[in-house]
């Protein structure tokens, strides 16, 4: 990667990204709010809850994570509740991938690992690539990378592009989710540009946030990203997934997201292979609502595992 290549592609990329139509901020907020008012009841709600469970990327990204905690999380990921599907994946830090691989062997649950100096992304490219290779070698099936927001905000699109392609190459067979950290991108126009940039560079998924920065996955941001994957598919034919993460805690939030997916991107994206929800406490609320639908009485947090 020489500077010359980066400059040329920055120029080209700027042409493409700044040629995208601007986001109508008021319109995006209003549409997201309106889609959030849909009422989903009974059988539809039960089906939606099970779909949402299968889309959860059960996440633990704390400095205090231990192998024991990861194992407990993996058990919960596989046996969510009697009759309920398994979650989409378990998401951990790279050094705990081995533990998760062992605990999830044969379950079909994916193993996602954050990489590339998560959550800040402030490390030399060699370090980021080594981080990624190690996670993949340990058995991660999905890699959640963060983009260099500093480079993106200074307009150095080529650098961001090259980093993503390099990490994509390091991923090999593993799916690559690119975290845009929308809370640091300041505008919806930037969210749209970053989404396109990540998709052009080869992302399999675009993900809103690390969960460490507020605001995270707000409904309008998810809306803009769902529009981006839809338009990208129309133009380039490649189908890219979306993963909102951060601040999604209630079943209501999750169902609102599913409505958005259906209405904005299309029913094709109502699939754990193309839509994931990064969350930790959401799963308990989904299971609690599932229990309420099954038994007819409200359940309480005492009856679900702490995590």
């Amino acid at each position, binding site marked *: 990667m020489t500077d010359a290549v980066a400059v040329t592609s920055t120029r080209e990329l700027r042409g493409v990204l700044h040629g995208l139509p601007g986001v109508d901020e008021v319109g995006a907020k209003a549409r997201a709010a309106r889609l959030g008012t849909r009422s989903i009841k009974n059988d539809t709600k039960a089906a939606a809850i099970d779909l949402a469970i299968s889309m959860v990327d059960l996440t633990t990204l704390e400095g205090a994570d231990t192998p024991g905690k990861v194992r407990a999380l993996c058990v919960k990921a596989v046996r969510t509740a009697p009759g309920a599907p398994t979650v989409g994946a378990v998401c951990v830090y790279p050094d705990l991938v081995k533990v998760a691989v062992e605990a999830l062997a044969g379950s079909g649950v994916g193993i996602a690992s954050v990489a590339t100096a998560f959550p800040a992304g402030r490390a030399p490219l060699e370090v980021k690539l080594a981080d990624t290779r190690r996670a993949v070698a340990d058995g991660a099936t999905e890699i959640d990378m963060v983009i260099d927001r500093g480079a993106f905000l200074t307009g150095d699109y080529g650098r961001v592009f090259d980093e993503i392609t390099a990490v994509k190459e390091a991923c090999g067979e593993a799916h690559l989710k690119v975290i845009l950290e929308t809370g640091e991108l300041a505008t919806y126009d930037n969210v749209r540009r970053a989404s396109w940039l990540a998709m052009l560079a080869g992302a399999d998924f675009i993900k809103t946030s690390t969960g460490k920065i507020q605001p995270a996955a707000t409904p309008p941001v998810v809306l803009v990203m769902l529009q981006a994957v839809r338009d990208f598919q129309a133009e380039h034919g490649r189908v890219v997934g979306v993963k909102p993460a951060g601040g999604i805690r209630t079943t209501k939030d999750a169902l609102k997201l599913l409505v958005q997916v259906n209405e904005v991107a299309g029913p094709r994206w109502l699939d754990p292979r193309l839509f994931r929800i990064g969350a930790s406490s959401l799963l308990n609320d989904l299971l609690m609502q599932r229990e309420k639908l099954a038994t007819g009485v*409200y359940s309480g947090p005492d009856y679900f595992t702490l995590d």
Partner: protein
Amino acid sequence: MPKADKKNKKPKRTEGGPVRLSVRKTYKLFIGGAFPRSESGRSYVVHDADGAFLANASLASRKDVRDAVVAARKAFGPWAARTAYNRGQILYRIAEMLEGRRAQFVAELRATGRSAEAAGAEVDAAVDRWVWYAGWADKVAAVAGNPNAVAGPFLNISTPVPTGVVGVLAPEGSPLLGLASVLAPAIATGNTAVAVADSPLVAVTFAEVLATSDLPGGVVNILTGHRAELAPWLAGHMDVNALDLAGASAELAAECERAAASNLKRVLRPADEDWHADPGLRRLTAFLETRTVWHPVGV
């Protein structure tokens, strides 16, 4: 000074002059220290004893019960962790605030058909009830707890601890005193409560007293609406630990007790009570668990 300000300063109701419009209170629910409308958007008309219109009150739904239980659960940990002495201070503060609003409560009770004398007596009794339970807050452990004699070198102590979230059906026919007599014993020991009120207007005004008494939000939640509609949801709720069925009819009490068995709630059955009489310790000790600690001594 603009004209409008002058008018506001001296509201006059003169012949042919401007008539000041009445500013009516919106009676809402009391959940988590806030006054939301019912989630369902419903309301119902409240009449006075003569059948005349008094106000529209919020008609709580099962989802308001759900929200109230969530608020009560959230408030339980911190409230139970406070010192009993501090809880007593806050209960006394409730009595102080209630006393300060005496005239308002007398007026609201009179609208329910009571004489001025009876209304005054009920407010006084309610204030005294809060003071009485305020005093008990830091003394109940000495009465309901015990150092136990055990056959071994142990100091063995049993202490009462609160059970959790208490669902309360406020008694009928005693809007203020009855409400005080069921809420105070529940929260004095560190429980939090979700109450379905009997007389909506008095109950909501009383919630305003609670909201200004340093009582943390969510410790008491008050819902107005149909008892028979709300009680089964409260009784079946897996995150409610006890039920005070003071205001339930025999059939409703039986139904609630059956539903309460699902998670072994402590249930206080309705009894024919004279709310003006000495309450005793029945209610205060009804929602307590006993925790026993063994500590080795003399080794």
